[in-house]
């Protein structure tokens, strides 16, 4: 996106400035995380990397840090994909470790409603909320395919059409479990010998299409009562689920016009659910490249893109659409003349698929490449390394602020391009600009829960 430093924040006095909310996305297991550069050789799995990442984000007063999840290593052409950073910890466990080395920042993990059971996951999330003093959040994903199912007890048990039904029932059961202990259940009164109050723990007895859960949960109400619910679904079902259930949406709509459209649509659904507009925050994912000047930022963007899209990655990316081996093509040459091969499952497994018609995508790409004289690698960079914000720290801060003040978002999920230092520069240079504009906290409220930090109703 093009940035201009003169895009003004609104000066209208009709409503107070909205506050910007930011999440820090741990560098992903995909091509955007640069590893082909010796300055970024830190381990993707060592706890020291998570600690640095989390403490830097907390230094930048981010609302929360965000961990994605993939429950199987990705495959490409029937083999484990070997071109990108790969390997990640168990999401819940590493968040528990991070809880111990941070004090204020929210801890949001991506966890499947398909390959977990409510009794266990609700308990783990409540444990994380206790251990972190009320900072736990759950990004619900509904992956259901047989490829991932092969790692789990029930395999491919869930029909795709039921994935949100299951997620919604999952959350409903989890809420019952989180609420089952009375607020003052634990007396721990040594004198009277009462550890529990009378009627301290209510039984949960749920019987639905997806779950039969009967019994007593093992934990008192956690500091937040219920962890913050985050959701990223974009389909009509996903938006409906989010408008009923989510407190944060992690969206793909980081463009301004597109962002406004999504924001208006989803916020507009809340009233019908009896929810206040501010009870749901919309945070699109965004990457960034900074420079002392706009020209320098563009130069760095190009350099980073070349590291993010190696010649091999360019071909592999194209193969996802063409559905066949393109190993013989020159990444610096023109796009293949052959048409895509239609396949049932695609050549790449373990990541979100292109839903559209491959032949149409290929035609569009060829037209674009011919019109602009793009090589295969140039074209792939256009799609797979398109940085959201490229500019000076002032430009990036003003763009973020404009999106927030003009209701294209409530903030962003910021993704760095290296691990674990990718957000250091953002914290050093962009955060102060936001703070100077009075739209971003200069410190956390003492003892704040994640829900409080996000400005969500309790």
């Amino acid at each position, binding site marked *: 996106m093009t940035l201009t430093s003169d895009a003004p924040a609104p000066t209208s006095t009709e409503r107070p400035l909205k506050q910007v909310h930011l999440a820090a996305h741990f560098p992903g297991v995909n091509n955007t995380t640069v590893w082909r550069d010796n300055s970024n050789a830190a381990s993707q799995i060592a706890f020291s990397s998570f600690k640095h990442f989390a403490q830097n984000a907390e230094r930048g007063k981010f609302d929360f840090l965000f961990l994605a999840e993939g429950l199987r*290593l990705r495959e490409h052409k029937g083999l484990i994909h070997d071109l990108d950073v790969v390997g990640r*910890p*168990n999401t819940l466990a590493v968040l528990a470790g991070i809880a111990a080395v941070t004090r204020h920042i929210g801890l949001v993990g991506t966890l499947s409603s398909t390959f977990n059971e409510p009794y266990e996951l609700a308990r783990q999330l409540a444990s994380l909320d206790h251990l972190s003093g009320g900072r736990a959040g759950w990004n619900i994903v509904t992956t259901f395919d047989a490829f991932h199912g092969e790692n789990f007890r029930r395999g491919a048990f869930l029909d795709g059409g039921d994935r949100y039904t299951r997620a919604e029932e999952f959350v409903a059961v989890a809420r019952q479990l989180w609420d089952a202990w009375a607020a003052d259940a634990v007396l721990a009164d*040594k004198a009277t010998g009462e550890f529990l109050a009378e009627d301290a723990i209510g039984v949960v007895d749920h019987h639905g299409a997806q779950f039969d859960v009967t019994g007593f949960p093992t*934990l008192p109400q956690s500091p937040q009562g219920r962890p913050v619910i985050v959701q990223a679904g974009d389909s009509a079902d996903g938006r409906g689920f989010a408008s009923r259930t989510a407190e944060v949406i992690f969206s793909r709509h980081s463009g301004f016009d597109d962002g406004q459209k999504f924001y208006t649509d989803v916020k507009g659904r809340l009233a019908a659910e009896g929810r206040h507009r501010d009870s749901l925050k919309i945070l699109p994912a965004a990457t960034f490249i900074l420079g002392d000047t706009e020209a320098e930022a563009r130069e760095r963007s190009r350099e980073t893109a070349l590291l993010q899209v190696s010649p091999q990655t360019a071909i592999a990316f194209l193969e996802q659409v063409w559905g066949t081996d393109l190993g013989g093509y020159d990444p610096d040459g023109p796009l293949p003349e052959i048409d895509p091969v239609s396949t049932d499952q695609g050549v790449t497994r373990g990541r979100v698929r292109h839903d559209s018609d491959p032949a149409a995508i290929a035609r569009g790409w060829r037209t674009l490449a011919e019109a602009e004289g793009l090589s295969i690698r140039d074209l792939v960079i256009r799609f797979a390394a398109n940085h959201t914000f490229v500019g000076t720290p002032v430009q990036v801060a003003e763009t973020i602020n404009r999106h927030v003040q003009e209701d294209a978002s409530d903030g962003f999920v910021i993704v760095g391009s290296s691990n674990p230092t990718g957000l250091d520069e953002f914290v050093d240079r962009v955060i102060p600009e936001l703070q100077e504009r009075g739209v971003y906290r200069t410190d956390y409220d003492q003892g704040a829960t994640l829900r409080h930090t996000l400005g969500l109703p309790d």
Partner: protein
Amino acid sequence: MTARSPHTAPFHLGIALDGAGWHPAAWREPDARPGELFDLAYWVDLVQIAEAAGIDLVTFEDAFGLQSAGFGGVDSRRDEVRGRLDALLLATAIAPHTTRIGLVPTVTTTHTEPFHVGTATATLDYVSEGWGGWRVQVSGRAHEAAHVGRRSFPALDPAAVVAGTDPAQTALIEQLFGEAADTVEVARRLWDSWEHDAVIRDVPTGRFLDRDKVHYIDFAGDTFTVKGPSITPRPPQGQPVVFALAHQKVPYELATASADIVGITPRDDAHLARILEQLADAAATVIRTASEPLRVWSEAVILIEDSPDQARAALARLDAAHGGTYTSDTVILADTAANVAAQLLAWHDAGLDGVRLRPARLPADLVRITTEVVPALAAAGVLDRPADADTLRARLGLGLPENRYAGTTPAHLDLIGSAR
């Protein structure tokens, strides 16, 4: 059993942490902190006391449901501690606060996902930088099965289970422990599924990973299959330490096949001799898949006062507060520190490798153990440790395990058998 020289092999010490201590009235003691059982700081304090004294590992009790006084369903008692944090997450949150003590959470195998168990235990090993372990436990309680709602179990009768007299009970136990053995096998394969040098960052070929060093585990058991590989690279210890508490034949066989350490509960010398015979029988009938000989640790509930009379009185006072005599699956040593140390030395002389001590009261008996029993054992010369031990395995004298997949190609994997 380890071939050992009883008087020179080091004796290892574990502390079993649970709530405010193992006596159900311990939470009412003057120094107990029953209002903080769900706070990280309480647990960090306890583990740091153990670490400072050179204890080898701490375990964290857990279950797939709320505590109850017996083996039946949840009771309505309000005078005992109820509620627990998830032990794996608790241990992982403690890990950044410690540097040289093993952290061994209880993780149930009956209703959990083996894949998640494998990655979670590996992650504990990463966060603790090589001090992670796992206490394997099954859930046979009918009310815990109802938390998931896809299986139903007959009510467990502990007496019949231990006696092995009821075929239905024995069948259930065999099923649960078979599943536990499968889960340990899956975890061990997942831990090995990345060779340690699988990440290559090879710029010329554009490859981050050498895919030939990452392996499918292709596990197929009676109740589940797991394809693999793990999403988590090989943990720092290679194979985190697996601990199994066992009271009878079937769990002895699980421990003998799969565990690094078995905890046993001898009431007296004759009982100890019988247990060791049963372990020897198990070793003759199962295939051991763990890389080193099984370590055998005893278990004891510990209450320490300055004189035997005072210790007995303290126990009686706790029992009175609780309204009944406390019983345990293992021996209760309510005595002086010197007499407790003498019993531990006797177990050492009998050839045992260590002991897991269950403090009756927290922090009181943990403090007594660390300040009085540990120095007595050190004076007896049984606590020598490798000076350079920087992982729990090294600390326990367990070697660096070979990776079962190293040097193999996928075509060879079907030669690797199941635990059973």
